[in-house]
């Protein structure tokens, strides 16, 4: 079993690096940790970076998960190959670009590029955004799946994810005590479906709703509250159609043995207990 420790970062290709950087800093509220040739790294918490935009095809995306031991990386590669996934070993240059000591890369059954990383860099300097969005850190991703049952099996059987709740057939998966770190949503094509940052409070969610609305950032869902994780949320659209989420107050699952996943309806009521309606294709029937 591949033991995912945490979600580490997301890498997104973009044709407009400057525009994406403007969005990530002035709107989303991240801090630039490094400007490199053809790539900009962003910081949202104690880690050196949790988002990287690079010059390239917007369909070129990757999500990274941390693995505890280097040996686990080797074992994971063997296991993935056994299940028919093509695994690429990261070169030292590629590792440096990702600010990790070592990594492997593969595609999940839907075709999402996943990187398993060993010793991703932390930084001694705390995160301080360019605007006061109240961000406490990068927290989870939504992933598109072309076959939800097959992919749930992959993440829960080949990897260590557990189902926390299901909205229709869409599973919200945890790898630690946080309600979910990966949320899978049925879609005709693979891709990162949304990127979540936690904020300090519900006030921060609402402040950002006003701030981003004033700046004509398209709001696609919320403000609302998820009945699943109990988090207050706001979804809005960033560069290249990527959906970003702020949320606050996500449930923590303390007791693995006693917790039972729940079935929620795949309709607006299952996504939001305040009554807001998603304008996100993957959240709609």
């Amino acid at each position, binding site marked *: 079993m591949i033991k995912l420790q945490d979600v580490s970062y997301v890498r997104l290709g973009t044709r407009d690096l400057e525009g994406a950087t403007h969005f990530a800093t002035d709107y989303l509220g991240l801090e630039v940790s490094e400007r490199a040739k053809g790539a900009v790294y962003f910081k949202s918490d104690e880690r050196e970076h949790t988002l990287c935009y690079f010059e390239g095809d917007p369909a070129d995306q990757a999500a990274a998960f941390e693995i505890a031991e280097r040996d686990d990386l080797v074992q994971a590669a063997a296991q993935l190959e056994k299940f028919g996934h093509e695994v690429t070993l990261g070169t030292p240059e590629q590792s440096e670009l990702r600010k990790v000591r070592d990594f492997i890369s593969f595609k999940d059954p839907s075709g999402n590029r996943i990187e398993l990383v060993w010793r991703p860099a932390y930084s001694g300097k*705390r995160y*301080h955004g*360019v*605007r*006061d969005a109240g961000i406490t850190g990068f927290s989870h991703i939504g992933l598109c799946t072309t076959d939800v049952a097959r992919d749930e099996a992959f993440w829960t059987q080949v990897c260590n994810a557990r189902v926390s709740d299901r909205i229709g057939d869409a599973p919200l998966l945890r790898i630690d005590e946080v309600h979910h770190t990966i949320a899978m949503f049925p879609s005709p094509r693979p891709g990162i479906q949304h990127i979540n940052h936690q904020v300090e409070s519900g006030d921060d969610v609402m402040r950002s709703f006003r701030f981003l609305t004033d700046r004509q950032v398209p709001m696609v869902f919320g403000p609302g509250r998820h009945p699943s994780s109990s988090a207050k949320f706001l979804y809005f659209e960033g560069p290249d159609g990527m959906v970003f989420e702020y949320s606050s107050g996500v449930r923590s699952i303390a007791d693995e043995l006693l917790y039972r996943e729940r079935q929620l309806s795949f309709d607006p009521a299952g996504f939001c207990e305040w009554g807001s309606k998603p304008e996100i294709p993957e959240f709609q029937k």
Partner: protein
Amino acid sequence: MIEIEQLRYVRLGTRDLPAAIDFAQRILGLQLIEKTAEQASFRSDFRDHTLVYFKGDPAEQSVAFEVRTADALERAAALLQENGYSVARGDAQAAERRKVKAFVSFKDKSGNSIELVLRPQTSGWRYFPSRDAGITGLEAIALRSKSNGADEKLWTKLFNGRVSDWVGDASYIRFDDAHHRLALHPSSRAGVLAIEYAVEGVTQLMQSQYFLQAAQIKIVHGPGRRPTSEQMFLTFAGPDDVLFSYVAEGKKIANEATHRPRQYPRQPLSFCSWGSETDIPEFTAGERA
């Protein structure tokens, strides 16, 4: 007795407003709130602003303290006048510039300009600076005093200030449970000696030390620790000969009834128990600066 609620702001004249704004934002780490051709105000905490730079003579400085009611402001003005201080009432325009309902101003015996303000504005939005200096708020003001004790009497007899400690004849005066909000340092002239901002902790204070070094800002005292307030401090030079300090930790006056002011000798170790050296004339041993 004039009851002071709290320290509110400092107004400083400057001949070079853009340079002062750059210092306050980029170096000190305050948040620019408002900028006109004439003045710029800066936030450090829940108060709308705690520092103002305005175009003018750098000798024009004032420190503002809040009183609670209009009645208290009237009584304060009358009491000061009875005691020989000449009190001026701020007009509506000046009050608006200060974002207060009303204010009076007077000069202490050294010539330091003091404003007593009513209903100064509070911000509903939290302080968020562009530089992460970890500032938690305006903590205290150090004033130069050439009055031979008359200024201390003003703050402790006419106002509700209490002396927490003395170093030589320098007095640390409190109005609440903080060790001091006002320090009076014997000097040959009047003026604001230092403006002190509290930071979250030692980490932020030391990060600033290296930041200031890299930015080639002159650190004039510290990092050190005051034996009086037990605050850790770092003092550096700002525009127009005004010093700024970051302070961290420090001791509250836990029991108002039992606290007795202590007399420390006028020597460097009384200003810094770690032994940091300084050329600040008001802190150096020997004759009055």
